[in-house]
C-alpha cells in the first residue's frame, strides 16, 4: 500500500494505449531516478502527451503499468495526485482572475487554509517574478508570464514529481530562456521532472537523460551527448535555388560529410552531418561548391536538431502527423491548421 522509499520516482513498464485504430503507445518503458530530469523527445503525435496523461491519472492505460513515487497510477490515483504537479501545453489558468487569485484558488483546492493559500501564492509569485503583476488579471499577462503562472500553479502543492508537457511550445526565444532558468532552479531544488519537448536543445539544456519516442515506441535513450553522437555532431546545411543543380551540389559535398547528404527536392535544402570537424568541413564545402559552380543560399553550420536526430535514428524526418494523444488537442490543432490533416487524409 505505501510508497516505496527507494527506487525510481517514475517507473513505466510496457505501457500501451490505443484510441480506436490509432496506437498512441505501443509498449514503452521508462525509469526516472529521484531528483533527475527525463526529457521525452518526439514529434507531434509520437505519444508524448498520451504518456503524460496516463502518468498524471488523466487517462487509463490499456496495458502495462506505471508507478509514480511507488503509487500505481490506476489503482492509487488519489495518492499519485497528491505527489504530482502538471503543467500542460497551454496556460491552464483563469484569465479573468488575477495571478494571486489563480494561485490562491489552486491552494484552496489543495485544501490549504486561506492564510496558507495566500502566503503560498505570494511566495510563488515572488519566486516566478510575477509579484508586480500579482493583482492584475492574468489576461493582461504576456504569453511567457501566463506560462510562468501556470507553472507556479502546478507547484502550489509542493509536488515531488513534476510533469511539464512542452513547457515552452509557442513561446518567444526570450521567454523560453526565462522558462529554462526557472525549470533549472526547480530541478536544483530536487524536484523529479518529466519534460516532454519537440526541441533537442531544450532537452539538451534541461534533461539528465533523454528518451526519443516515435509512433508510440521508445526508439532511443541516453544522455544528450550520446544522442548527438548518433547524429554525428554538427550539421552543414544550405539551400540550392536552382533545383536542377541539387544533384551536383550533393555530389560536390559528398566526401566531406559523415554519411550521405540528405536533400529535399521540394525546398532545395541539402544537409549533411559533419561530425566534430565543423569549420574544416565548412571550408571544404565552400571550395567544393565553388568548384562545381553551384550557387547556394544560407550556407551554415548548425547544431543537430530534432529532425537530424530523427533522420539518424529512423531514416525519416520528424514530420507532423496526427496527434493521437488526446481528442481535445487533436481538435485544437486541427482548427489552427485549418484541418490540414483531415484534408490530406481525404485527398490521398
Amino acid at each position: 500500500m505505501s510508497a516505496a522509499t527507494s527506487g525510481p520516482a517514475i517507473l513505466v513498464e510496457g505501457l500501451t494505449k490505443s484510441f480506436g485504430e490509432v496506437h498512441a503507445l505501443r509498449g514503452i518503458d521508462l525509469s526516472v531516478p529521484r531528483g533527475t530530469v527525463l526529457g521525452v523527445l518526439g514529434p507531434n503525435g509520437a505519444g508524448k502527451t498520451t504518456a503524460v496523461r496516463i502518468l498524471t491519472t488523466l487517462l487509463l492505460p490499456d496495458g502495462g503499468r506505471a508507478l509514480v513515487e511507488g503509487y500505481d497510477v490506476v489503482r492509487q490515483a488519489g495518492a499519485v495526485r497528491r505527489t504530482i504537479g502538471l503543467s500542460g501545453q497551454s496556460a491552464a489558468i483563469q484569465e479573468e482572475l488575477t495571478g494571486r487569485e489563480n494561485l490562491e484558488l489552486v491552494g484552496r483546492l489543495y485544501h490549504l487554509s486561506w492564510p496558507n493559500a495566500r502566503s503560498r501564492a505570494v511566495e510563488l509569485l515572488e519566486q516566478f517574478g510575477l509579484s508586480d503583476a500579482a493583482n492584475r488579471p492574468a489576461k493582461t499577462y504576456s504569453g511567457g508570464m501566463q506560462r510562468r503562472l501556470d507553472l507556479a500553479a502546478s507547484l502550489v502543492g509542493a509536488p515531488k514529481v513534476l510533469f511539464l508537457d512542452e513547457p515552452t511550445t509557442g513561446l518567444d526565444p526570450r521567454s523560453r530562456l526565462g522558462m529554462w532558468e526557472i525549470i533549472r532552479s526547480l530541478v536544483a531544488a530536487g524536484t523529479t521532472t518529466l519534460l516532454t519537448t519537440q526541441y533537442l536543445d531544450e532537452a539538451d539544456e534541461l534533461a539528465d537523460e533523454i528518451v526519443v519516442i516515435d509512433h508510440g515506441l521508445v526508439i532511443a535513450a541516453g544522455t544528450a551527448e550520446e544522442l548527438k553522437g548518433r547524429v554525428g555532431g554538427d550539421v552543414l546545411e544550405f539551400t540550392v535555388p536552382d533545383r536542377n543543380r541539387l544533384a551536383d551540389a550533393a555530389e560536390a559535398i559528398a566526401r566531406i560529410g559523415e554519411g550521405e547528404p540528405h536533400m529535399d527536392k521540394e525546398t532545395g535544402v541539402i544537409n549533411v552531418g559533419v561530425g566534430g570537424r565543423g569549420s574544416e568541413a565548412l571550408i571544404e564545402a565552400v571550395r567544393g561548391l565553388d568548384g562545381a559552380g553551384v550557387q547556394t543560399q544560407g550556407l551554415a553550420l548548425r547544431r543537430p536538431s530534432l529532425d537530424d536526430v530523427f533522420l539518424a535514428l529512423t531514416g525519416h524526418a520528424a514530420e507532423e502527423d496526427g496527434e493521437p494523444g488526446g481528442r481535445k488537442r487533436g481538435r485544437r490543432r486541427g482548427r489552427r491548421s485549418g484541418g490540414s490533416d483531415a484534408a490530406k487524409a481525404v485527398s490521398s
Partner: protein
Amino acid sequence: MTAAAPTAGAGAPITSSGPSLLTQAHWAIIDTLTITRRNLLVWIRVPAYIMFTVIQPVMFVLLFAYVFGGAISVPGVPGGYVNFLLPGIIAQTAAFATFGTAIALAQELQKGVIDRLKSMPMARSAVLAGRLVADTGRMFVTIVIVIGVGYAVGFRFQNGFGLAVAMVVLATVFGLAICCISAFTGLAIGDEESVQAFGLVWLFPLTFLSSAFVPIATMPGWLQAFANNNPVTFVVNAMRAMALGGPIEADLLKSIAWLAGIFIVFAPLAVRAYKRAG
C-alpha cells in the same frame, strides 16, 4: 470486537486506505464552494457575461411587451399580454442562461483547466457541481431582475406570494435541468464555437416553439403538435397558472416528470463526459 483489540489491524486498514466517506463528502462540499466562488468571480469580472445574463433578458421583456405585444392577443388572460409574457420570458431566460454553462466548460476543456483540476487531489465531482451551483445562482439573479423589469412594465402576480415563490422555484429547477443538458453538450463537444452554434440549434426551437411567447392555438397545426408536447410548454403553463391563476396540477405533474427524466438522463451523461473529457 470493541473490547480489547490491542493488535494492529483493528482500525488501521480503514485509515490507511484513504479518508473516510464523511471526510470525502466534507471536502467535496468545500471544493464545490471553492469552484463556485471562482465561477462567480469570473462572471462578475467579464462585462460581456453581465450583458448576456442581465441586459439581454431585459431587452426581451421590453421587445415583446412593447413591440410584438400589441399584435398578440391573449383572450382570457387577466392583465393582458404582459402577464402572459413574463412566465414565458423567465423560462426562456433560464434556458438561455445555460449557454454560459456549455461555453464555460468547453473553454476550460480547451485551455487545459479541466486537465489541471483533474490531476489535483480535489473532489472530482466539484468542477461540475460548482459549475451548476454558480450557474443556478446566476440564473436566479436573472429571474429576479426579469420580474423587477416586468413589474415596471405592468406585470403583476395575481395568485399570492406563495405561488409566486413556487413559480420562481419551478423556473430555477427547470433551468438546472437544462443546465445539465448544456453541461453535457459543452463537455462532449469541447469546442467553444461549435458549442455556441449547437446551442442555437436546440435552445431556440425548444424555447420559442412552446407556449412561452404566444398562445399555441395561433400556430399552424403541425407546429401545434410539437408545441403541445414540448416540455417547455408544460413548465411555462404551470408557471403561468402559478402566477396568474388557473389549474396547476396537470401541467405541474407533466413538468416534474419531464424534468426528472432530463436529470436522470443528462446528469449521468454530463458526469461521464467530464470523466472522459480531454
